[in-house]
């Protein structure tokens, strides 16, 4: 049987972290009474016009720069037409002809065979990033055969990040999306929380034989977590392979991922190819961005966006932070991945290192094995940890000064988790966990043990 090459591309919509919407002054907020965060423009009432939010443009520029894109100094807005109850205008304002950023790349890491010690770096090309409006939310009430529409989300700014089909499986896609999520959160351009719909991923999947042209692709939607993303893609790859090996064909269709059943199903309401009748948005002129060289002399600062100014102020991206952690503390690359993968863990680690004499290479074990596993067991975030960095550092100091053994330290830690407000020293004294340093006292104890077990001693001496 000839091998199959799966091809995976992604379209990711990230909600921009801003106070107000892309083209109107209504508030951006996840949970709010229905239709309370809606302006006349968002509801598409006649006579209203779009006014571009500066912060949204800056967010898109930051993201484009972080993803190594070329920023288009002139980009355009277009209308994409389709009818749906949660799109009151009947069109979405997007950037189809000339988006704000193009031709970037994203590097991400994968563990080979699930071993964290063997990590490989991969790259996926970023085709483009475009600014566009989000739609409202539809709640389907099948029992009463109606749809309830909440426009709170209508008009919120989105960055659509298009990743070229450089990935080959669910694991790669998941790793790429995870890294993008961390980058967006580091930049602050999006909080990228999938559970709150701030990061939505659609996967384009196809399979072909090596050397042959790409196969027909399907689009998979309705994926609500990174874990499900990997599952959905792997399922779809398998489904397509089985279909083709059984002599069937793949339809160029849109499918939804059913997380309960773990499979993809054709989506209704998406029959036939859509014709969006793109046209330039007549109410918005081109978006012009500047850099240090092209900065106009006489323009109001508030009206000017300087790409170089934004570039200079980009924070350290996750890949840079990891490298610095490895260099500064001598920890392994896979450790740096885990540190950055948990919100607040890297900061906790650095805080402990500052407060203890124990070497970072030893501290990391306590952070990644003891602290992290405890937090995971109890579904706590680092911020919710009953053991503060101060308490942990204090404990590690006792260990470092050889006042207690490693085993005793684990015992003390178990006690500290209870969060009863005791210090390590108090627990050590309570449970008599002090290491004996007195040679004479040690000899006395050993002799007592030997005296008390004369038979066993004879057996041991005889071998």
């Amino acid at each position, binding site marked *: 049987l000839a091998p199959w090459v799966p091809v995976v591309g992604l379209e990711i919509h990230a909600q921009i972290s*801003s*106070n*107000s919407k892309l083209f*109107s*002054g*209504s*508030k951006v907020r996840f949970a709010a*009474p*229905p*239709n*309370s*965060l*809606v*302006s*006349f*423009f968002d*509801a598409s*009432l006649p006579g209203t016009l779009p*006014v*571009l*939010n*500066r*912060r*949204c*443009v800056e967010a898109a520029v930051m993201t484009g720069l972080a993803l190594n894109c070329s920023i288009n100094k002139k980009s*355009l807005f277009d209308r994409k*037409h389709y*009818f*749906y*109850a949660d799109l009151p205008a009947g069109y979405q304002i997007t950037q189809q002809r000339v988006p704000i950023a193009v031709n970037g790349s994203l590097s991400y890491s994968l563990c080979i065979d699930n071993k964290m010690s063997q990590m490989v770096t991969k790259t996926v090309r970023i085709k483009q990033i475009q600014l566009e409006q989000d739609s409202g939310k*539809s*709640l*389907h*009430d*099948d029992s009463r*055969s*109606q*749809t*309830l*529409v*909440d*426009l709170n989300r209508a008009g919120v700014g989105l960055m659509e990040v298009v990743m070229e089909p450089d990935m080959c499986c669910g694991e790669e896609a998941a790793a790429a999306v995870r890294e993008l999520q961390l980058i967006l959160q580091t930049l602050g351009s999006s909080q990228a929380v999938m559970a709150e719909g701030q990061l939505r991923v659609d996967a384009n999947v196809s399979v072909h034989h090596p050397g042959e042209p790409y196969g027909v692709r399907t689009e998979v939607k309705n994926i609500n977590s990174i874990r499900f993303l990997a599952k959905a893609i792997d399922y779809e790859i398998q489904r397509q392979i089985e279909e083709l090996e059984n002599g069937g064909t793949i339809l160029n269709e849109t499918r939804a991922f059913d997380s309960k059943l773990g499979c993809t199903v054709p989506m*209704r*309401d998406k029959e036939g190819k859509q*014709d969006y*009748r793109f046209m*330039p948005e007549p109410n*918005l*002129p*081109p*978006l*012009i961005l500047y850099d240090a060289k092209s900065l106009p002399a006489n323009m109001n600062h*508030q*009206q000017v*966006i300087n790409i170089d100014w934004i570039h200079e102020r980009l924070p350290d991206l996750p890949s840079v932070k990891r490298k610095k952690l490895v260099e500064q503390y001598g920890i392994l690359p896979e450790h740096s991945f885990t540190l950055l993968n948990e919100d607040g863990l890297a900061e906790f680690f650095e805080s402990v290192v500052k407060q203890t004499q124990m070497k970072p290479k030893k501290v990391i074990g306590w952070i990644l094995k003891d602290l992290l596993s405890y937090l995971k067991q109890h579904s706590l975030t680092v911020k919710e940890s009953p053991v503060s960095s101060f308490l942990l550092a204090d404990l590690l100091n006792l260990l470092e000064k050889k006042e207690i053994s490693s085993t005793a330290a684990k015992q003390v830690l178990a006690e500290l988790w209870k969060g009863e407000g005791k210090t390590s020293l108090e627990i050590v004294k309570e449970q008599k966990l002090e290491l004996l340093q007195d040679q004479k006292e040690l000899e006395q104890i050993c002799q007592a043990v030997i005296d008390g077990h004369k038979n066993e001693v004879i057996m041991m001496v005889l071998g």
Partner: protein
Amino acid sequence: QKVSVEVLEHLEHLALVDFRDAEGVERLQKAIQFADQLHEVNTDGVEPMDSVLEDRWCLYLREDNVTEGNCTKELLENAREKVEEYFVAPPGNIPLPKLEERETFLEGS
């Protein structure tokens, strides 16, 4: 050049417009002919124009402040039907009935 029935159906589906009768279709064809006159102009090597104002048409950038919203009651006044501050819509897009099913079937087409 006539507009085929397939194109007509496609347009009606996209725009949710009912061309109603032969006269409506004729008007559509005349409109297309009128717009086709644009093709008579040679635009080879000419950059598309966004506006006659050219670069004097500046895109205004708004500060990221909350200045609107909070008018649920007013917005819902426009709704024919509402349920607890939600707009009510049919369960999915209602497709335009096929040409044959309509009262205004194109006669003599």
